[in-house]
């Protein structure tokens, strides 16, 4: 019988520092065992538990897209004991990983629809996965609009890719920072405000929101105001998931376990869950 508590072995293939303060780092991991790679199927929005043996595990959204076959990508913000140790990893180090866990963004339902992606800060990880996934089957989707906000220009992750995305004419990519900075040519203002400004209409459109709790809290009402029905607004919740398989009870809110019923929830579902946003 498969033992869901045993981590797979992964090798650190590439490390990239995302910000000048070096609190955000992106890791590309490859499977040590080829057979495990074959069995590992995921979709944008899912997460993994990454293990530092001796320290413990933490959950991270998968930032790579399933269409990127060679590696799994994670971006790690250094906040606690496990993430601190992850930041000490070097290329070639072996770490543990369990997953894919949780559900995913409704990529099938999005087909033939306009897609609005709203993200904030370093929570852009699973949104990157989603965006790459959509772009790799670009013809399946109609207009794609991305709004990505951060406190200041340094705190955007995947800056090189952002530059490329902004050049593309088949997506509308809007960057915004909280307060004006010299030399900044993109938008200034909080994500909810920018969303109000540049969001496409709600007709035949799906909105995906992921970011810090406060951003989600103030963006969801804007989407409602713009006319998006609750069934077509999705967000990803974060809690201190531990087992990832609906047993340990840490991420229980209402009758749901974020690790298996989520982390992706529609606004319609959220309305029936207490303690969410």
């Amino acid at each position, binding site marked *: 019988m498969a033992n869901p508590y045993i981590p797979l072995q992964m090798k650190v293939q590439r490390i990239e520092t995302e910000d000048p303060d070096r609190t955000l780092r992106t890791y590309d991991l490859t499977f040590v065992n080829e057979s495990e790679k074959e069995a590992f199927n995921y979709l944008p929005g899912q997460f993994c538990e990454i293990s530092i043996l001796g320290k413990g595990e933490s959950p991270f959204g998968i930032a790579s897209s399933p269409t990127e076959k060679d590696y799994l990508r994670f971006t790690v913000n250094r906040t606690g*004991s496990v993430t*601190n140790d992850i930041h000490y990893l070097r290329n070639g180090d072996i770490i543990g990983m369990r997953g894919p866990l949780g559900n995913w963004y409704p990529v099938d339902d999005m087909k033939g629809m306009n897609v609005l992606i709203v993200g904030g800060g370093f929570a852009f990880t699973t949104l990157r996965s989603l965006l790459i996934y959509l772009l790799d089957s670009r013809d399946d989707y109609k207009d794609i609009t991305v709004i990505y906000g951060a406190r200041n220009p340094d705190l955007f992750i995947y800056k090189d890719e952002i530059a490329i995305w902004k050049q593309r004419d088949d997506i509308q990519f809007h960057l915004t920072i909280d307060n004006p900075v010299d030399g900044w040519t993109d938008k200034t203002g909080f994500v909810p405000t920018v969303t109000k400004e540049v969001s496409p209409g709600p007709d035949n459109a799906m909105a995906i929101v992921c970011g810090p709790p406060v951003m989600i809290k103030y963006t969801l009402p804007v989407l409602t105001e713009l006319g998006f029905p609750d069934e077509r607004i999705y967000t990803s919740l974060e809690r201190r998931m531990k087992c990832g398989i609906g047993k340990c009870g840490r991420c229980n809110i209402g009758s749901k376990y974020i690790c298996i019923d989520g982390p992706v929830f529609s606004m319609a579902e959220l309305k029936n869950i207490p303690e969410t946003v």
Partner: protein
Amino acid sequence: MKMINPDDLSKAIKELLTEKKIDLFIGWEKGSLPLSATPLFITSEDEAERAVFDITCGNNLSIYFTKDRKQFADKKVGIAVKGCDARSVVLNTLEKQIDRANVVMVGVPCHGVLDKKKVLAKTDGREVLELIDNGDTVTLIGKGYELSIDRSEILSSSCLACIYPDAQECDIFIGDARAEVPNENRLKEIKEFEALSTEERWANTCAEYEKCIRCYACRNVCPSCYCNVCFVDQNDPGWIGNTCEFTDSMIFHVIRNLHVAGRCVECGACERACPMDINLLLLNRKVAMEVKDRFGDIAGLDINGKPAMVDFKEDEKQDFIMG
């Protein structure tokens, strides 16, 4: 034995609330089980009659000042205190957790509180359905039995060794407060423990801490345990393991024991709360005795004093500092 007159207690509470001297009163009321009173929080004088004080009122209510990060910080609070509870209020005042000016301490004459495990030992584990407190004796009634026993047989170990049954610091006292009460059993349990061989002491200690299930009831009912994040809950770095293995449990208890050195008021709430009946007070009391011997300090006795562990006297031997 001069027991409390419940009318005097409710009258005092009623007055405090009616005259708006307090916003809230914390006391005890009759619980849902015959052996346990339960904490009472009242804001209206009409509820004052619910307050009781008897052998079942074991909780040290001063813990509620530090719960939820000083939840009553902006309130005037009246609180019923036994001798030990009053020492907690004093200690927490000295440690700046309580603003004494916002607290009205109502002392109650204490003749000791019961320890459930001692009661159940008397009834051979049979359920007690009714308890009658007659003062010197207590009547226990259950299905098919009625027992009359001496009060001292079921008192908490903390009470058997108590020398300050009544509040030494308080604003109102219901009855006549006793000053220090001589107690020949003050150090009995500690001396007995000290008389054992090292091996025996180790064996006893192991046997006790092996029972721990790490529920932290002892910590959470302790008025001196109010750290925002307890050392057992810290994970960066993680100081100790959290399993119920003996080594992990013992380290938890020993560190807690040292954290409350000079701060333990010997109320015994920890021991009574323990669902596994661990003898938690013995080491705490041993350390309290050491603090008394070395520094002359009894935790929470002097509102104008300084807790032993934050005080420094020039004539101290201080060998632990100077090496």
